[in-house]
């Protein structure tokens, strides 16, 4: 369960997030949509404790991220790429991440297998393609068997087969009762995967709710997206 309420973030005089609020529920895939620069990443960065909010709060399982004793066992997150140093091997990267949260070492081989990197576990991350880096980032997110997954543009750099694979993985996580929040600026990626939609434009939430509710009155999700986000842009 993710609960974001009245979130405000300013960069100098510019308001990046203007009272952003929404929820992502267990058992559902929530897609966080908006044009580039709309405030998706800023929201997710605050959610996982990287940045500080100027107002409001972002809670996971009822607590602030920094209050979680072993955060990776509650929330798995992937924000832009592998998150690993290029000269380390995937295995070594996952090993320190596991150690930091008291996660058993057996999980390393399990998640490497899950994301299809077993054969590249001893290769340096610097030699990875963009898609392999995404897979490693996802492996780290899955390491602690978290209830909640927070993924910023997870399909970036994945090939069609990879996109299909990640959709299956996220669907499976939600169907097993987990909470999935993923951001995207590509409608085609999330149509057919998302149960709930949250749309942001210019730092404000312009629509949120179940997919069919948000798209009702529009031809499709893409149509709804442009109608809703353009309306905000022209305000």
């Amino acid at each position: 369960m993710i609960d974001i309420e009245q979130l405000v973030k300013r960069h100098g005089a510019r308001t990046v997030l203007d009272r952003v609020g929404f929820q992502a529920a267990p058992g559902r895939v929530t897609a966080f949509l908006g044009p580039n620069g709309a405030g998706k990443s800023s929201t997710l960065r605050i959610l996982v404790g990287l940045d500080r909010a100027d107002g409001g709060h972002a809670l996971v399982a009822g607590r602030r991220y920094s209050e979680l004793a072993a955060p990776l066992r509650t929330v798995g997150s992937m924000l832009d790429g592998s998150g690993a140093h290029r000269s380390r091997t995937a295995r070594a990267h996952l090993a320190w991440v596991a150690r930091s949260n008291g996660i058993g070492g057996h999980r390393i081989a399990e998640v490497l297998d899950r994301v299809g990197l077993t054969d590249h576990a001893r290769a340096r991350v610097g030699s990875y393609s963009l898609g392999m880096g995404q897979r490693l980032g996802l492996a780290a997110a899955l390491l602690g068997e978290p209830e909640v997954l927070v993924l910023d543009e997870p399909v970036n750099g994945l090939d069609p087969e990879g996109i299909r694979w990640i959709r299956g993985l996220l669907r499976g996580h939600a169907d097993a009762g987990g909470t999935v929040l993923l951001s995207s600026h590509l409608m085609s990626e999330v149509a057919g995967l998302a149960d709930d939609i949250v749309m942001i434009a210019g730092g404000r939430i312009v629509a949120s709710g179940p997919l069919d509710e948000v798209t009702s009155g529009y031809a499709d999700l893409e149509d709804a997206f442009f109608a809703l986000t353009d309306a905000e842009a022209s305000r």
Partner: protein
Amino acid sequence: MTAPGLGSAVAAELDKLRTLPAMLLALAGTIVAGAALGSAFAAAAVAGRVALTATEATLATVPYLQAGMLVVGAWPFTHEYAGSQIRSTLAAMPRRPRLLVAKTIATLVAAGLTAAGTVAVTWAAGAITLRAHGIPEGDVGLGSLVGAVGYLLLMGLLAAGVALLVHHLVPTLVTTLSVVMIASPLLAAQSEHARWLPDRAAQQLYAATDAVLTPGTGSLVALGWVMAIGGIAALRFVRRDA
């Protein structure tokens, strides 16, 4: 499963250093350079018919070996910012004060091992070289050798403090190397106030030549520099957005 605490954070930070090739290279490189320099200084003394103990040879190498220590001290902090690892680190260990304590402990372990290993190997190389020429290695003078380890450790910590402040390896090395290799000797030739520079003050640990500072007060002055720079950097790290 119990909640992971400081112990897990320290273990994770040590894991990071152990699996970072550049860190191992800096550590091994400093020790190997120590062996080469220790042997070279001893050989030069033998060739020049100058009386020199293995300990004296070791102390003479310290100004050169500190460059290696600066790299060893900088890496634990700067490698986080080469790419996106800092995000993984903060996601895994969001309590920043605790993370900094863990990182400092891991850095102390790595820098301590490097400093102690380097001084030991340098002395051994000097002693073996002297013996090879039939000259005894002379008094060990353990106090000044321990002082040299302390000095090297302080230089590693100084680089760690600067690294936490500036985040990147090259500016960290440019800053710290300019201070210890250029500014310090230049200022020392001009003014007696140069004794308050971190490296000059810490030098009293193995070469107590100053009229004002003792090994004790000298190391405190150097530690003061480390705490001041590290303190400002830590405050910024804890408060700022990543």
